[in-house]
């Protein structure tokens, strides 16, 4: 099976955000980064699928050169190859332009299964996986919490507001991974040593103009100062009074 895991570098979830001088970007200086939380699940599921069905796992990112740090870790966890679509302005690409560049590379590499995260925790689009499926003509299942994959297709469970949906799909397919699908492994010493011998390709991505124009990025309005209405159960009447007559939400 030819398997690709798409991963993206994002600011850590602890990061305090600063707005860039142009007022339309995030100031990246001093911002610590990590692989998007759900992309670790994508790497894990890709490696597990290879362990079960054989084949090869390629980790793919559109990002900066020093993403090799994160990719090296994915290689240590068992991925076979890694490719960086090198773009210094990757963070400014919209979802369409990102997905077009990834799709072009996936087409070139060939794939039976593409794993993505449910959402990248920077722009919160949750769109790149489904865009890829439309560009590639692949099936796609999103927000997957359980996967039964065979070389020709399979079933997946996804979490929705209505409950757990069971979905059938053919291969080739794009799967977006949600929490609960697996517990990502840690890289062992053996894996870390093996990863040193694996290659990370750097190639130029397809250039695609953005179709979304960012006018401004602002911090959310600060919440107005609240107050402690009291201590213990004795404070309940004061809270009820505030909710009914001040906030008018009851």
């Amino acid at each position, binding site marked *: 099976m030819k398997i690709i895991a798409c991963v993206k570098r994002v600011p850590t979830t602890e990061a305090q955000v600063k707005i860039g001088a142009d007022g339309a970007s995030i100031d990246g200086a001093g911002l610590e980064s990590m692989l998007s939380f759900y992309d670790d699940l994508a790497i894990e599921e890709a490696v597990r699928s290879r362990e079960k069905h054989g084949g090869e796992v390629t980790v793919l990112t559109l990002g900066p050169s020093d993403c090799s740090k994160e990719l090296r870790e994915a290689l240590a966890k068992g991925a076979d190859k890694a490719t960086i679509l090198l773009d210094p302005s990757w963070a400014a690409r919209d979802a369409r332009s990102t997905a077009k560049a990834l799709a072009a590379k996936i087409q070139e590499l060939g794939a039976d299964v593409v794993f993505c995260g449910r959402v990248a925790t920077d722009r919160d689009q949750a769109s790149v996986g489904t865009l890829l*499926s439309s560009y590639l003509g692949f099936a796609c299942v999103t927000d997957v919490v359980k996967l039964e994959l065979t070389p020709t297709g399979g079933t997946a469970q996804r979490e929705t507001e209505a409950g757990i949906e069971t979905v059938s799909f053919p291969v080739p397919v794009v799967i977006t991974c949600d929490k609960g699908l697996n517990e990502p492994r840690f890289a062992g010493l053996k894996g870390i040593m093996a990863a040193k011998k694996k290659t990370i390709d750097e190639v130029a991505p397809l250039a695609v103009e953005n179709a979304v124009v960012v006018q401004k990025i602002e911090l959310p309005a600060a919440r107005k100062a609240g*107050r402690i209405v009291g201590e213990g159960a004795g404070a309940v009447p004061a809270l*009820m009074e505030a909710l009914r007559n001040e906030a008018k939400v009851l």
Partner: protein
Amino acid sequence: MTSILVFVEHVRGTPRRASLETLGAATATGLAPIALVTGPDAANTAAALSAAGAKKLVVVTGADKYSPDGTAADIAAAVTAHGAKAFLAAATSTGKDLLGRVAGLLDSAPLADCTAFSFAGGTFTLQRPILAGKAIATVQSKSAVLCATLRPNTFAVASGSGAAEVSTVATKGGKVVVIGVAAKGDAKLDVKEAPVVVSGGRGLREAAGFKIVEDLAAAFGNAAVGASRAVVDSGWRPHGEQVGQTGKTVAPQLYIAVGISGAIQHLAGMRTSKVIVAINKDAAAPIFKVADYGIVGDAFEILPALTAAVKAVKASN
């Protein structure tokens, strides 16, 4: 007249509120909203959708089992057939799943989970929270057809008059098919859509501690239970209830955080709630920094009293 195509979700012919809100946002632009519905009983939505602003209704027939890629193809075809300038859906599981598929078919750049939406001088301007609400981006779409999902609980439902003109089309069908749904017990409200959310954290000590949270949610009647990641990771609550950066982003009228410290990742998911109440035994807990009202003390003592008080108010209303 220029139109906007809105995908409407429904439960046996009753449109979901989040879809009606999306229709409301489309109506507010002054463009003509076209609603697209699919699945069994789809045609039964006609009256409710006309009353909520739909000028036309496209009923997709033959889609007895839901297919996401099939539905995306049906939507893209309807957008093209009607020359619609935009495709909108509510930012629910289904709406978010459709967004990129449809945008891919229409070569549009999708915009997910938007909290403001307007149309002026031929251009759509939208706002969307990024980094789980730590920042808000204002963006314009240059795509020939705008594709976006709108956050539930954010836009008003419109009122329309007259009867929408109904047409039917047969589904194109798709490769991916929903073959079963294990429904949640007693049609529980989802945290993303409920007007009131009562969330619990590690302060509840154990899974059984959530009884007091469930009781308070039940007293409201229109509340959903939410959870911090700490308790989801401990297996006390399902992941679908997790609020925060790696869970759901919610914006209810009233959010009550019980035994939750208020870590930055949790705050990211709930700080745009209209009113926030915090109950925590530690007066220095960061949750009090975003709360409108706080009670310092033991949740196991406070919640039963609060539940009784809410019940009394609901009974007298």
